[in-house]
């Protein structure tokens, strides 16, 4: 559906985006990840036809998306990271304005505005100004404003920044409903758990380049460890620290060990290897104060690819 091919953009000497390519299929949700300054926003701006790329192209169903009155933009909806709303214009008037920009008018526009307000749960606040809304309500209206013209591809740039958990859930309900309707989504976020919950394909960008472009399962498979075991020892040193770490690293299924005082962070090739490791520690006479297992997170994938965390 969306084809991003070899996009490049420089600002002076700085290359913000360097040959970015990826695809979005119909009904697919793509998580676009990258730390601050990675080139995400510039890529999104070029996809939406806000800025002209130095090289490369963006096509939506075969039509080029370019700045100006490009027909392909009709199929595309943008939810900007900022609350891009007129605070002193009633909610329904905001929606009518953004609908009219896509050619909607008259009864069809009114009907559609009421539909999207219902979708985001703001029907009872239609005549109120956004300046009187809570942060979460504004975020929901921000999403609604991108849905008026029923776009096939919705681009959401950090749509949950600064909202409370309850509003975040409400936003996710809306997005999952849109996904269920077969709409394609591009989702950028700093919240890995949001991307893990929603995305069925992930594109990781850093320094303007695509580092990974695959479904989450495949990305996890690329990692040396798929699970983690955190152990806190009771404090009795049965084995010297170096010997303990080296011995643990030599056990079957252990990908790596990090020690911080009495805490051990053990990377495993799978959760099945956790029990033998715990048994071995018990056999060596160590008493466990606490232990926990965890699946490898998207954050670990990101860290292994970029060498920094998403919030860096």
């Amino acid at each position, binding site marked *: 559906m969306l084809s991003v091919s070899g996009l490049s953009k420089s600002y002076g000497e700085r290359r913000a985006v360097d040959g970015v390519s990826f695809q979005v299929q119909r009904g697919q949700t793509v998580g676009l990840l990258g730390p601050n300054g990675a080139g995400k926003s510039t890529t999104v*701006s070029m996809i*939406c*036809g*806000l*800025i*002209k790329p130095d090289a490369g192209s963006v096509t939506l169903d075969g039509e080029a998306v370019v*700045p*100006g*009155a*490009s*027909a392909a*933009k*009709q199929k*595309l*909806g*943008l939810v*900007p*990271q*900022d*609350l*891009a*709303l*007129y605070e*002193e*214009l009633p909610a329904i*008037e905001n929606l*009518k*304005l*953004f609908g*009219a*920009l*896509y*050619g*909607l*008018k008259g009864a069809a526009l009114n009907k559609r505005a009421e539909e999207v307000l219902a979708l985001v749960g703001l029907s009872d606040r239609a005549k109120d100004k956004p300046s009187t809304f809570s942060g979460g309500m504004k975020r929901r209206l921000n999403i609604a*404003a*991108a849905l008026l013209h029923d776009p096939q591809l919705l681009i959401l740039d950090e749509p949950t920044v600064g909202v409370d958990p309850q509003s975040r859930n409400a936003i996710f309900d809306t997005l999952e409903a849109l996904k269920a309707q077969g709409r394609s989504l591009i989702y950028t976020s700093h919240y890995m758990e949001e991307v893990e919950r929603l995305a069925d394909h992930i594109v990781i960008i850093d320094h303007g380049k695509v580092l990974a472009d695959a479904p989450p399962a495949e990305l996890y498979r690329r990692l040396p460890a798929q699970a983690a075991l955190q152990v806190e020892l009771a404090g009795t040193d049965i084995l010297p620290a170096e010997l303990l770490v080296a011995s643990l690293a030599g056990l079957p299924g252990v990908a790596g060990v990090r020690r911080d005082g009495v805490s051990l962070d053990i990377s495993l090739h799978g959760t099945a290897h956790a029990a033998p490791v715990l048994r071995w520690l018990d056999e060596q006479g160590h008493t466990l104060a606490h232990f926990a297992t965890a699946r490898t997170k998207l954050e670990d994938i990101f860290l292994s690819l970029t060498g920094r965390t998403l919030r860096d």
Partner: protein
Amino acid sequence: MTAMIAMIRKDLILYLNDKRALMLNLLMPIVLAAFFGSLFGGSGSGNNSKIEIGLVQQDSSAIGRKIGDALKADANLTVQEMSQEEAQDKVRAGKLMVAVVIPAGFGDAAGQSLFQSGGKPELPVFYDPSQSTVLAMVKGLLTQHVMEGVTRDVIGGGASGAKFTDDSLKRLEASPASEEKEALVSLLGSLKKFQEHEAAKPAKEPSGGGMQVPFTTKDEALSSGPKYNAYAHAFAGMGVQFILFMGIDLGIGILLARRMGIWNRLLAAPITMSQVLLSRALSGAMIAAGLMTAIFFAAMLMFKVEVTNLLGFALVVVAFALMTATFGLLIAAFGKTPEAARGLAVFATLILVMLGGAWVPTFIFPAWMQQLTVVVPTRWAVDGLDAMTWRGLGMDVALKTAGVQVAFALLFGSLAIWRFRAQTR
């Protein structure tokens, strides 16, 4: 077209919903124009042009009293008699612009100085240093009244005049013989006869003699329109100034929209940047034209300002409204942040309105500045509005002033679009 109408509609709703800003945009120019209008002569029907002066009458001679009476009777002056100390205090405090002292013995000394050389009597004049223009006017009137008062008494047969002539003849006869002496004795002899003739007249009228200013002016206010109304110019000037401030708000609004991401949301739609800018310019122009019309409507109701050429007025207002709107776009295009742009734009606007004659009419400017300010767009707006109100000029002037403003609007708009496009590349 649907998109543009929607964007214009949005701007108008936002503007009209902001009642406080709307009232300020309307009230401030009206209040300030009322003040400036009254300062520059009001509607021309009152006596606001009279100069208030203080008079310290220390001379009780016939000539001294005549000078004082003449000053009091002058239609251009409002004279308050007071002591010298009071006059000095009031001038120092700025409560009086000028005070004139007629010192004791001035009348006699002035009469004698007509026939003899040497020192002349002094007439002290106290003045506020910020009112030097008024001082010149008062001195002019004083010269007229002193000349008339002194010569009327000396030549016209007054007792003191005969005494001056006798004294002068005695002094001449005691002086060494010369050609000038003979001629002067002859002149004074003739004058003495004239004085005796005048003095012998029964029931003498109060003074037909003496030297008079040898002309009177016939004052005729010339304009094609109605009687001059200072409020018309004041409303034009203040209207231009405050509507330009509204233009600044327009530009700042675009910068804020860019900062808030609204700009990107607009441009993510299948519309061009030119459409977005054009719709903003049109809505801004509608607001500007509406404001100017409302301001002049208030001027007509409250201060009897007359619009003498309705079509020409509409043309000038529309052209000014377009120029204001594109001025706002220019601010948005070249401003980096709303905060920095506002400070710079307010400064630029104040310079524009000052040079455009919005505060004081351009004819007060020095000649070189009057020439220079033809490149200032606001000058054409103020001149155009003056022409369509109290000057009562025709469509040719309306077309000229509106045409220049439209040219400025095209220049501003083109620069703004060029700059905005450059920023998206």
